[in-house]
């Protein structure tokens, strides 16, 4: 399984856009998780009287209205945004694979029940669903935000997985595995899902972009990641009054969001192309 996923990755990297996306993601991740050791200590007492300083020596991205280094905040906000997105997508993909696997393998009433549920969930816009949840649960901790983003992100994946499993369960190797004494759990986890790993990886990659945008949107609305924990969306919210006077305070986190989402989508598209050359 690792072998076929590896081949898929390598094939995705043969396209220029896939390569570009992968390089940006690698650099961004590296930067966001390594840079804190190289940058000014964000907890250093800021000079409140200095206000927002434009980009220049000492503060390449400038400082915000509280004189905090914007670069440092973009970096630590990136840790939060990327971690939230990564974990939420991991959860979403796991749920999607399990639900899709069960529905596709067993079929019948279980399939109908699960898929009607998914149909219903897909009919409600995700942002609306999230707003509803967040409205009910006001002081949502970060872990819960991950759970909520994950729990609302698996619907499309479950459909993809179900479709593939439906096709694969008639394959002779499934019959062969059954003839060798494999039970349903083993068939689904060991034989069917690994064969769907490619489409799942594509869905996951594209899902990361969605979740970063969603989280930024929620944080911008003040209901995602709560201050003082920095996040890209939250930084733009903080910077709103300074949009004309100190635009760097919102431009840099905005650029970070745009670059990350663009890179993730480039890679996701390249993976999809590698998986099915006809769709590229």
């Amino acid at each position, binding site marked *: 399984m690792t072998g076929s996923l590896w081949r898929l990755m390598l094939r995705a990297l043969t396209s220029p856009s896939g390569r570009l996306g992968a390089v940006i993601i690698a650099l961004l991740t590296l930067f966001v998780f390594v840079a804190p050791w190289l940058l000014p200590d964000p907890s250093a007492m800021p000079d409140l009287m200095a206000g927002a300083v434009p980009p220049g020596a000492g503060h390449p991205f400038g400082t915000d209205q509280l004189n905090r280094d914007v670069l440092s905040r973009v970096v630590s906000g990136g840790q939060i945004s990327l971690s939230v997105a990564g974990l939420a997508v991991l959860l979403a993909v796991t749920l999607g694979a399990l639900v899709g696997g069960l529905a596709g393998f067993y079929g019948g009433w279980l399939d109908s029940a699960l898929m009607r549920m998914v149909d219903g969930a897909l009919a409600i816009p995700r942002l609306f669903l999230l707003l509803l949840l967040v409205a009910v649960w006001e002081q949502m901790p970060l872990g819960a935000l991950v759970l909520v983003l994950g729990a609302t992100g698996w619907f499309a994946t479950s459909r993809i997985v179900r479709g593939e499993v439906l096709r694969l369960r008639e394959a002779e*190797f499934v019959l062969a595995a059954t003839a*060798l004494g494999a039970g349903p759990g083993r068939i689904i986890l060991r034989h069917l899902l690994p064969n769907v790993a490619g489409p799942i990886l594509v869905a996951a990659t594209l899902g990361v972009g969605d979740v970063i945008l969603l989280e930024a949107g929620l944080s911008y609305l003040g209901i995602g990641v709560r201050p003082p924990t920095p996040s890209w969306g939250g930084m733009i919210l903080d910077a709103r009054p300074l949009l004309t006077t100190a635009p760097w305070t919102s431009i840099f986190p905005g650029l970070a969001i745009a670059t990350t989402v663009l890179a993730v989508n480039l890679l996701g598209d390249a993976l999809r192309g590698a998986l099915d050359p006809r769709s590229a």
Partner: protein
Amino acid sequence: MTPLLEVEDLRITFPTRHGTSHPVDGVSFSVARGELLALVGESGCGKSLTSLALLRLVPPPGQIQPGSAIRLDGTDVLGLGPEELRSIRGRRIGMIFQDPMTSLNPVFTIADQIGESVRAHQKVSKRAARARALELLQEVGIPDPTQRLDVYPHQMSGGMRQRVMIAIALASEPEMLIADEPTTALDVTVQAQILELLDGLRAARGMAVLLITHDLGIVAGRADRVAVMYAGRLVEEAATAELFARPSHPYTKGLLASVPRITGAVTRLTPIAGTVPAPTAWPAGCRFHPRCPAALPRCATDDPPALPVGNAHRMRCWLAEAGRA
């Protein structure tokens, strides 16, 4: 001594829009330990379904009818719960399929797949399973087995894949191997090698083999006994030499006449006229009578039972009674 496997009056039905289909309709046979029984018949005669039924793998909505019995070493296979059934599948009866291209999981290496089979039935470490996989690859005659452990199925030829399938089936040292058309998808030269391998394994391991095939030609030198199936039933059963020397049922004769021979005078092949009838509407009387060149008037109305024609040689044909076989 009781036979290893006994099948008695096996009936399988499928509900269809055109009424109930009876693709397997009263099949009885037995396989002794270490014996190679060939089940021969044309497409659609029910031979594959019979083999699937032995492990209760009949695809839904197909059903094995009450009154059927399958006994493995005296254990009633049809009465087993899911857990007990799994301990028979693979563990006591292994099975290989027609198309080695699709019966291996495309995303796992050979070592993974054989190892999984090893570990499914024995509690051993991954390392030990890998070592066992290597032994099995050697046993099934794969050249350069160390190199082959880490390749994927698509990197192997059809014959090699069928050998891997056999290795997987052998992993748990089953007492019986069901081979459902194991050579149909392979080149003629490879076919012979695979059959040779199966025959050799049977001898080396004392494992019974049920060989399902449509090709009487490949049965000749290898099977101990042959059972010929037609329209959901066994029509003739005999030791291989006896069957080839004295084919008695008109259908068997027809099958033999339609196999090209390399020796002897060049004659035209004689195909059997017509096709196998649909399992929703078997003909009344003997099921072969509409295609039978030797049909008697009573064949159209009376269904012949299995009648003896010689030593351990039986057929379902009125000619046996008339002494004209």
